[in-house]
């Protein structure tokens, strides 16, 4: 490497890092400032890169004129439900895969990995038929079930990798001290694994919070719509109220941002762990 190359590298790196930062931030910036502009400042060819008149009207309209409060409530219910059930099932199954030897273990792991390769769109139609037969169509519980199914394989594998990192000695010591097996799991192992459990919950929560097509397919009445479905109905029309839509998008964005910020490190670790090591 010549001296010039050596000097150019750090600068190139800074240029690249700044480029990616702007690429991510500018779209969100535009989304946000549109949501605080009055309608006349949005629909103008004299484009304002910094809002001249700041207003919260779009948020007011969003809350009063649409069913946004209902959508929000549904999204929260579905996401928390999905997160809780998925996490519980993943803890149980992950523990079984990490701590036991049994005949069907390899098959179970392969089966879980294989489900990762089945595209959701393929299962959507037969599931809709199944749902309408058993009365789960157009219901929040149906949506929660489909989201659990979508998230469980990955979360289970993820949870297993968290268990794998905890030395078995800890539990054995607790067993010798007279703890029951379940007691050892709850009193010793789970507290240490709290970050991993939170990461799993967040993963399932974000998945459910953001999902769009199943929710469109399975939910038809306004009272059960989640935020993405509820708002996407307005996007399909030609006369989009951009101020209100961007306000809705900002509201939809906040929970995922907060969750992601809290557990970013664990999710990043977990994603790679769960997916690469299997």
């Amino acid at each position, binding site marked *: 490497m010549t001296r010039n190359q050596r000097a150019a590298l750090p600068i190139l790196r800074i240029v690249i890092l700044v480029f990616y930062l702007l*690429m991510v931030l500018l779209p969100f910036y535009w989304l946000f400032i549109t949501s605080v502009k009055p309608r006349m400042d949005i629909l103008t060819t004299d484009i304002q890169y910094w809002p001249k008149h700041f207003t919260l009207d779009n948020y007011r309209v969003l809350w009063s004129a649409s069913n946004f409060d209902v959508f929000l409530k549904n999204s929260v219910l579905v996401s928390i439900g999905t997160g809780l059930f998925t996490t519980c099932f993943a803890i*149980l199954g992950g523990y079984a895969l990490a701590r036991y030897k049994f005949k069907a273990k390899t098959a179970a792991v392969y089966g879980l990995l294989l489900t990762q390769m089945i*595209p959701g769109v393929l299962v959507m139609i037969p599931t809709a038929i*199944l749902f309408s037969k058993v009365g789960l169509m157009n219901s929040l519980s149906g949506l929660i079930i489909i989201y659990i199914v979508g998230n469980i394989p990955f979360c289970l594998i993820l949870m297993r990798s968290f268990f794998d990192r905890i030395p078995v000695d800890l539990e054995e010591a607790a067993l010798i001290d007279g703890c029951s097996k379940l007691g050892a799991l709850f009193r010793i192992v789970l507290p240490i694994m709290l970050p991993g459990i939170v990461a799993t919950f967040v993963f399932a929560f974000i998945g459910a919070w953001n999902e769009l097509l199943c929710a469109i397919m399975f939910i038809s009445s306004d009272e059960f719509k989640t935020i993405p479905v509820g708002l996407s109905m307005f996007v399909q029309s030609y006369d989009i109220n951009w101020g209100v839509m961007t306000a809705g998008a900002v509201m939809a964005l906040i929970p995922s941002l907060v969750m992601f910020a809290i557990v970013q490190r664990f999710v990043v670790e977990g994603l*790679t762990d769960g997916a690469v090591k299997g």
Partner: protein
Amino acid sequence: MKRLNSKEPYLMLAPSFLLLMIFLLYPLLSSFLYAFQSYKLTAPNDIGFNGLDNFKAVFSDANFGMILRNSFIWVVVTVGGQFVLGFILALALRKPFPGRNLYQAIVFLPWAVSSFVVGLTFRWLLNAEYGPVNDLLLKWGIIDDKIYFLSDPQLALFTVILTMTWYGIPFFAIMLLAAMQSIPEDLYEAADIDGAGIWSKFWHITFSYIKQTIILTLLLRTIWVFASADLIYIMTAGGPANSSNILSSYMFMKAYATLDYGQASAIGLFFMALLILFCYLFMKVTKFEKAGNF
């Protein structure tokens, strides 16, 4: 701790696997049957087997060739773009710098955002009348006329591809970065002593060390991108005139808009056949079996 012949692990796995069997495996298998049936929700009394009619109807659709071609372009350009841009980001993030954690939290954000928000945001950014992208390009003299990103049939697909690429960069960057961080630093030190150049270090150490991760990530992402229809639905709904439809979005629209579940299932079956063929070829070419380690 580890015991054979115990029922406990089976009981612990039961809730997950029961759900997967009822709501994933069973629907998947039953879709084979629906593909050979007349199954329109608009005609509930007229449900029954109709042989290959659904397949004939789908394959004779005048747009089907274009949709297949679109799917191919969509997968290749999107996955290629995500991979290259994700790789560059991961390389830039490999060595620590002040504020790296915060920086990572920001650039990985798109991963946590819903396709609805992403689609809406880019539609608005690229809006022909009031969007900032057209405005800036005109002001800077890069273009003379407005670009109709989403209503021009020549451009609509590529506009969604651009958005999808942006959306998927974090996933690749996260996976590749983690793999890069597992490369022992002394490999680079030894290469330095040997006087290896930057390209030689990149090729012989970085690239060859994380090859398995690259292969696995490419496979998972290709399947995922091939199957994802939500951005297309939000941004163009497949239009104008099917010009931005791919197989998965076409199938979704068929089921959702026309309620013809039979034809949609036939598309699904064809879709699955393509996917299996792809996986087989991919594993054959990359000798993937050696990559699994569990």
